[in-house]
């Protein structure tokens, strides 16, 4: 990546990280309710793939760990935080919550809370793109365990059969909630599982954004040039638990520590520093600036925004 792009994407990833860490704090303070699935550790997956794609142009859909994908597509972090606070100014008007972030204007087509649910929806969007004849692609980000749902197999079959322009990104973080992949899944290498449907696939490190980007370029190009659907597996790790009520008894602190040595933000930062193109002081200033932005703009906006009106409880059930 060019230095300019490296710096920009580092900044974006730091924003994503600090945003999520601030959500954690707000949850502890009971400002955020419900379930909260945080993204730290996996940033290079979303940012690497979307750097290769066209955010705001390509249609993106994902599961419930969705805040960062929305932001990368163009959602305003203020509107995402307001959604988590259950406010009318939230990007889903306070009707969705953490697991249902939407920003259709930026073609972020939503976070869905049924594991594997977005597979056919993504293929359907690809079908629509195919009919309309545009240059867009559909991108579906899901975790490894979604691949054990029937929707995975049903969708891979149809996507291949009808040559749909959809890229499936498997963020393999090694655990389905609290069950290790090898304890739930007969074939641990996820990219191999689509071979049964004749779908082109690839696998790479999901912690190094420049590695992800290289593989994602190939994947995106393949789908955009209408050669068919594509499945990209990224090996990654979530630093926090599955959701907030997770004591992480299913994995060791040693394993967590090993993965933290491969923090996607640090990998990019340290590479730039090693190449004498960046300094630790710059990074510290960046973090400080972003924390300031989150506190004084993002959180402030969410705090000060109005609740949805109870009189509008049934608005959006059906069309007006």
């Amino acid at each position, binding site marked *: 990546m060019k230095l300019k792009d490296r710096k920009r994407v580092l900044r974006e990833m730091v924003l994503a990280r600090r945003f999520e860490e601030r959500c954690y704090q707000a949850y502890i303070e009971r400002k955020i309710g419900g379930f909260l699935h945080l993204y730290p550790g996996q940033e290079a997956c979303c940012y690497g793939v979307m750097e290769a794609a066209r955010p705001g142009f390509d249609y993106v859909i994902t599961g419930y760990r969705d805040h960062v994908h929305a932001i990368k597509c163009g959602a305003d972090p203020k509107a995402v935080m307001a959604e988590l606070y259950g406010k009318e100014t939230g990007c889903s008007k306070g009707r969705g919550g953490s697991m249902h972030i939407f920003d259709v204007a930026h073609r972020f087509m*939503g976070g869905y809370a049924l594991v594997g649910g977005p597979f*056919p929806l993504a293929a359907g969007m690809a079908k629509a*793109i195919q009919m309309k004849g545009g240059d867009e692609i559909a991108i579906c980000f899901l975790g490894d365990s979604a691949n054990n749902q029937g929707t995975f197999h049903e969708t891979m079959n149809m996507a291949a059969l009808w040559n749909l322009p959809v890229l499936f990104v498997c963020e393999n973080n090694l655990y389905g909630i609290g069950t290790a992949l090898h304890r739930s899944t007969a074939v641990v290498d996820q990219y191999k599982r689509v071979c049964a449907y004749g779908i082109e696939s690839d696998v790479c490190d999901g912690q190094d954004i420049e590695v992800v980007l290289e593989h994602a370029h190939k994947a995106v190009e393949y789908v955009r040039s209408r050669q068919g659907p594509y499945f990209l597996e990224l090996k990654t790790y979530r630093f926090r638990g599955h959701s907030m009520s997770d004591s992480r008894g299913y994995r060791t602190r040693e394993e967590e520590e090993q993965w933290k040595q491969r923090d996607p933000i640090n990998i990019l930062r340290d590479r730039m520093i090693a190449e004498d193109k960046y300094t630790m002081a710059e990074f510290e200033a960046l973090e400080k600036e972003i924390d300031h932005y989150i506190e004084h703009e993002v959180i402030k906006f969410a705090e000060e925004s109005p609740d949805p009106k109870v009189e509008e409880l049934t608005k959006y059930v*059906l069309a007006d």
Partner: protein
Amino acid sequence: MAEIMYWEAIRRAHDEEMARDPMVICMGEDIGVAGGTYKATKGLYEKYGPLRVIDTPISENGYTGLGIGASFLGVKPIIEIMSVNFAWLAMDQIFNSAAKVRYMSGGQLSAPVVIRAAGGAAHQLGAQHSARMEKVFMGVAGLRVVTPSNPKQAYGLLKSAVRSPDPVYINEHELMYNMKGEVPDEEYFHPLEGSEVTRPGTDVTLFGYNISVHWCLKAAEILAKQYNISAEVVDLYALAPLDREGIRKSVAKTHKAVIAEEDEAPCGVGSEVMAIINEECFWELDAPPVRVHSALVPQPYAHNLEKATIPDHEDVVKAVLKLFGKA
């Protein structure tokens, strides 16, 4: 006004809507090359091609979800589920995606799909091919549920469903595809809400929908001829939302009500209509309403057992006579 069959009416609605709008597609098992199990899409594959008339794999949840995803971007899929029993497999996508996406996105996104399914007890199809599931669909926020009782409704409801901005579930009946009836020659859109007084009367209201409307009509005939009872038949072609005002109006006129449904009683159309009567017009009643419904058993195969399970017009007559203290 031509007399055509129920399946022909559905086919005509498909054809007109697909000719009008290239974004209207239809999808389902055996609907293309094979022409559709009930012929509802006969000839469309030849006319519109495989990209718009899609023979799907036998993957109900998958292809229903695919249709829903396509609808996000302006495609208008008419999804046929060959038998409503198979719709159980697609419930995840129908309920979790189609019905909820408008709400949980704060109105940004919607899934205006049309889902047609053939239900009902046909001839000895057994436990897993005889379900009536309308009561499951009608209890879910974000879905419209309609159920045509004749070819005119089958045509007009599908036309309106295709134009609707909401997801619409259309409940058809396996025994009704060959029923004949008059359908306007000109384009016709049936409202997706409301109810119809199919036969006016003064002494009792018989509420029915889909096939049970025909039991009610036949029962009304017998009641008039043999017992001098004037029964009003109300066709609840819209099950979600139910026509509370239509229900109230008829009961306020006749002061007695019988609700006939092919489905089992618990949490069903009958339960819901009774609850509405309670809420809207309890003091208009001269007698407690009566439900006519199937037995609560997995549909048996044996002919005599199946007959004992599913009600018919005679059960409606009996229910009315009971209401009048004549049985």
